[in-house]
């Protein structure tokens, strides 16, 4: 098993963690409550079912998918290299939860959760754009912040800060908007 991100503070699972432990006994890798943020790490294969449970179960009711991002632990020489980070907020119960899942470099993919919250669509596109993590099942996994011809994924730690890319050629407007033009 890989090391955890944070120093665990000899802690007991809080309510949501205990619930997830009971519901998904085999998929929970570890948990921590560092600085009061309830955090669980789950296996990559289970991310969709865990998220579905978090959204629908009356004890969880996470209506808001607050944030979705990744962290690159290249410089820390961590295996697996990437980690997906999801933040959820429940308005019914008022609690927050952070769910993380490891993503190895050689199989850089994770199942898309776009069917659960609409907001996920763009967040996953951004994450793919920035980190090159592929979201299986995403309907339109194209670059969001960078342009199509951009090479590489800028938020990876091995993408150099000062790397320059060639200026792209101007696209013909007609080519882009061929539909609708009579």
């Amino acid at each position, binding site marked *: 098993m890989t090391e955890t*991100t*944070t*120093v665990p503070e000899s802690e007991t699972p809080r309510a949501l963690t205990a619930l997830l432990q009971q519901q998904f006994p085999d998929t929970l890798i570890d948990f921590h409550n*560092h*600085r009061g*943020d309830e*955090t669980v790490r789950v296996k990559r294969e289970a991310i969709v079912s865990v998220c579905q449970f978090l959204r629908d179960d009356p004890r969880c009711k996470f*209506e*808001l*998918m*607050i*944030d979705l*991002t990744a*962290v*690159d*632990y290249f*410089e*820390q020489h961590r295996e697996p290299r990437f980690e997906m*980070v999801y*933040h959820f*907020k429940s*308005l019914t119960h*008022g609690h*927050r939860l*952070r769910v993380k899942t490891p993503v190895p470099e050689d199989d850089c993919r994770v199942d898309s959760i*776009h*069917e659960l*919250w*609409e*907001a996920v*669509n*763009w*967040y996953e596109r951004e994450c793919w754009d*920035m980190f090159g993590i592929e979201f299986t099942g995403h*309907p*339109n996994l*194209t*670059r*969001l*912040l*960078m*342009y199509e011809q951009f090479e590489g994924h*800028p*938020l990876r*730690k091995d*993408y150099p*800060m000062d790397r320059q890319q060639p200026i792209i050629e101007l696209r013909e407007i007609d080519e882009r*908007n061929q*539909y*609708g*033009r*009579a």
Partner: protein
Amino acid sequence: MSMESALAEPQLSRLPLEAEEDTSIMAIEVGPAHPAMHGIVRFTTYVDGETIVDMVPEIGYLHRGFEKESENSKWIQVIPYTDRLNYVSPLLNNIGYSMAVEKLFGAEVPRRAEYTRVIMGEISRITDHLTCVGAAAMEVGAFTFFLWFIKAREYLWELIEQVSGARMTTNWTRFGGNATDLPDGFLDDLQERLDKVKDILDECDKLLSKNKIFIDRVKDVGTISKEDALSFGFSGPMLRACGVPFDVRRSDPHSVYDELDFEIPVGTVGDCFDRYLVRMEEMRQSISIIEQAADKMPYGPIMTDQRWVDYPDKKEVYGNIEGLIEHFKMVMEGHQPPKGEAYVAVEGGNGEVGFYVVSDGSGDPVRVRLRPPCFNYVQAMRHMTIGHYIADIVPIFGSINMIGGELDR
């Protein structure tokens, strides 16, 4: 458009095949550089007559690599960068980022610093709403409104200038406190200026809230249901306009908001008019919060005395070797928050501004992530505009208060 059908039709980069043969559909580019676009964003809009049948938002024109830049800086060097995110309420970003790093440190902020942060943060919220409402009203024809609101905003920015030294590029918070205390006579000046702003708000309220021409342009335009808004990850005034009383200041009380009394205005249907009303009322609530905080303003230090969070006193630095070494190490190696991660949400001008920071115990951040509130709104533009007239893009886009610096980072 129901949620299911929106899911079934992913973000199209081209029209569906049947539309290809339908010559009545025309593509119109709105933006990237258009007078009604705040910042730079492009909407490729497909219209049938004047009705929008599809639209594809394209963002990223203002991408400056905030996160990459931050991860290649020291922790403290990120603070000036946060000014450039939401540049009409920069202080709220300053506060959010500092709170995130303070959480990593486990540092306490002195009470006077918390109260000043509340005052400055609420002033920023008012300037944010003034900009949004003023600009949105101007775009549908109420130009007077814009001029008056910009005047009011200037009163408030001068207050911010008195404290931080700059109107927009504030760079005011530090880890464990604030860079400067309130200057002498600030609270009296604050009250005077708040009174002026209140007058302007009342006057503009009379001018616009019952104005038939304005209401015709914004009522039942850009409506989004409660369920869809939640699914799209809305927060702040946009979500409250749909009738969901979610406010980070109340749901996850940070700073000293739990000691202050304020109400959370909510809308009913979630159209552009509701968003306008919610923002107008929030400005009044913010004024009330500022007045309460000014009344309760405690005396005391404005920076924490926790070691390694703040630089040591100059007296220490020049007076003894420990202080000198500590100062040297903090300048050369940067602040070194303990290994860990933290997410902090603050109620920004237009929603939940979240900072997710990861530290490996060194002076260089592993990850600095901003959760921009208007990212979700721009994503929902397609959902909100389909079926409306093309002219409705202007009030809808005005009401979402997109800030390019924050959206594209």
